């Protein structure tokens, strides 16, 4: 695909698609894949953990997908996609070597700079671990800049756990406390059973020197936030990644509104203090 500038004629800049080559595809769970995309002409793959891209399957459509990491050679971006509709099915079944469109990165990610010198607790539910993964990788890579580091992760069943190789390597680290739980175990499962909030029994957070990053289904985030507040964390130190319908990614189509915010450009990561009037409220 030749270098094309969609905006050249009429300035269609925010809707301009960049092409990427699918260079890898790993099955995470029966319906979820991590696809690796190498940009075909863009300068680089710079992004902030917590940001997302709009991924386009030719002739099918475009969906917002969190950036779940970058390959260690810095050549490709990773996106973890659950096949639940026509576009996500097209993305997860794209063959190695084929092309997908990409716009991004968009949005505001996790406040990793702000949390330097502090403890960090990361809480992920289900596929909500995907946008947290690059934050975890960043903290581990810059481990000396942070205090105590907890990762709490919950999934429905052991088969639904993402990034099993990562989980092993994080668990092996002495400087990271990883706690994993599943709602329902199987015959081989030796770990915790229960929803992710039950893991708070095993961690004692320092409320005034801890940052919390939370991503998962809204109900999971609601109860997680309650646990964090029970441990005394103030709203300004609790960050949630919100999910809303998105079509444009740049605050123009209106779909992702969440109170006064456009999740795509003001978020998806918000401090609880910003969204306290809307977070946990039904149907906003």
């Amino acid at each position, binding site marked *: *695909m*030749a270098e*094309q500038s*969609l*905006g*050249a*004629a*009429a*300035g*269609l*800049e*925010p*809707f*301009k*698609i960049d*092409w990427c080559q699918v260079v890898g595809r790993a099955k995470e769970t029966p319906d979820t894949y991590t696809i690796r995309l190498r940009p075909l002409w863009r300068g680089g793959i710079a992004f902030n953990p917590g940001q997302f891209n709009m991924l386009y399957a*030719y*002739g*099918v*459509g*475009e969906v917002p997908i969190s950036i779940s990491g970058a390959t260690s050679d810095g050549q490709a971006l990773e996106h973890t996609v*659950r096949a*639940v*509709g026509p576009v996500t099915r097209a993305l997860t079944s794209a063959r190695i070597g084929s*092309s997908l*469109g990409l716009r991004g990165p968009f949005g505001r990610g996790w406040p990793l700079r702000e949390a330097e010198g502090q403890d960090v607790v990361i809480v992920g539910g289900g596929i909500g671990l995907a946008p947290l993964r690059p934050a975890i990788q960043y903290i581990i890579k810059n481990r000396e800049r942070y205090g105590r580091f907890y990762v709490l992760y919950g999934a429905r069943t052991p088969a639904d756990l993402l990034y099993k190789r990562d989980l092993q390597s994080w668990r092996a680290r002495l400087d990271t406390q990883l706690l994993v739980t599943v709602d329902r175990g199987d015959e081989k499962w030796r770990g915790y059973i229960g929803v992710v909030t039950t893991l708070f029994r095993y961690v004692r957070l320092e409320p005034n020197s801890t940052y919390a990053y939370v991503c998962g289904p809204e109900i999971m985030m609601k109860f997680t936030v309650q646990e964090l507040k029970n441990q005394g964390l103030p709203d300004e130190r609790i960050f949630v990644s919100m*999910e*809303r*319908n998105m*079509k*444009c990614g*740049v*605050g*123009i*189509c*209106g*779909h992702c*509104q969440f*109170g*006064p915010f*456009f999740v795509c*450009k003001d978020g998806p990561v918000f401090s609880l203090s910003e969204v306290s*009037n809307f977070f946990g*409220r*039904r*149907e*906003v």
Partner: protein
Amino acid sequence: MGEIRDQSDYYLLDPQLIDGLISALRGLGYSVIGPVVREGAIVYDEIESAAQLPVGLRDRQGPGHYRLEERGDKAFFGFVVGPHSWKRFLYPPRVKLFTVSRKGEVTANNLLGRKMAFIGVRGCELAAISVLDKVLLGGTYVDPVYSAMRRDVFIVAVNCTEPGENCFCQSVGTGPEAGAGYDVSLTEVVGDGVHYFVARAGSDAGKSLLENIGARRATDEEVSEAAARMERSRTLFRKSLDVNGLKDLLYKNLESPVYAEVAERCLACANCTLVCPTCFCTTVEEATSLSGDVAERWRRWDSCFNADFSYIHGGPIRSSRLSRYRQWLTHKLATWIDQFGVMGCVGCGRCITWCPVGIDITEEAARIRQRGLEVSAT
């Protein structure tokens, strides 16, 4: 487009000169768009002469009600606003964004080149264009379609000498007189054997157009008569929206029982959002050729009242009509202010007129205020 406040910048146009103005704009290469009658309503469409204007007609409006009737005079602009707004020309209901070939060649839809002149833009509508300018041009990301369509627009505003039954522009500060942003404004004086327009230039382009069509300077008497008509207009408003502290009030009363009551009447038909001159939500559609060699991305207006508007995997965020009406009302009157620094409502009253069940945004806002006060009093 600097404001010109000199008395000498008032001109007088006889009715025939409106035709001259339209011809002159066409001569300058503008597609002239103005009010015309279609299927019993006044809408906006391309016109070639003043003869196509809805001369002698007025619109009778009410909640869920719109009828045209004869005025008994020859007024050119003796009506207020209909179901169309200028949004449809600046931000088309359906527009192709680009074409992609299977090989990956992306071709932008070239939207540049059309010069448009809008005839009969009311104060509320001028304010609505200014709101859209903020929404679609004023942020980090600029909408390429709006930006292309907006680039060369000549605006002939009309001051409303007779507000309609559903108009409340005065209470939100957008009318009945057109504010900044026009090239030419007109105040129509009709009746008692006279018929003329007092025109004012709002830009250099407007001034030279008025000079070129041979408009003479208005006399002091003519200017005063036009001013008197506007003075009278300000006393004729029947509806108002109390904007005092409205944003905070709505933020505090997100669970107001009023929303559930509205939801019992609201059909979630989306009419209010389609006729609204500032509603900007869109969705995109992917269209593929039969051979599959070419795919197109089309964008069309969407509405927060549609069930799939808030769909994410698992279901819509806002499944109830209550939540969709609340989203719309709080967006117009509260969250819009945080997003863009202005209210999303310009007081045109279209949502009241075109609501099939006559839901009135001014009444609902007042009821939320009243109920909120009752709650805080107890």
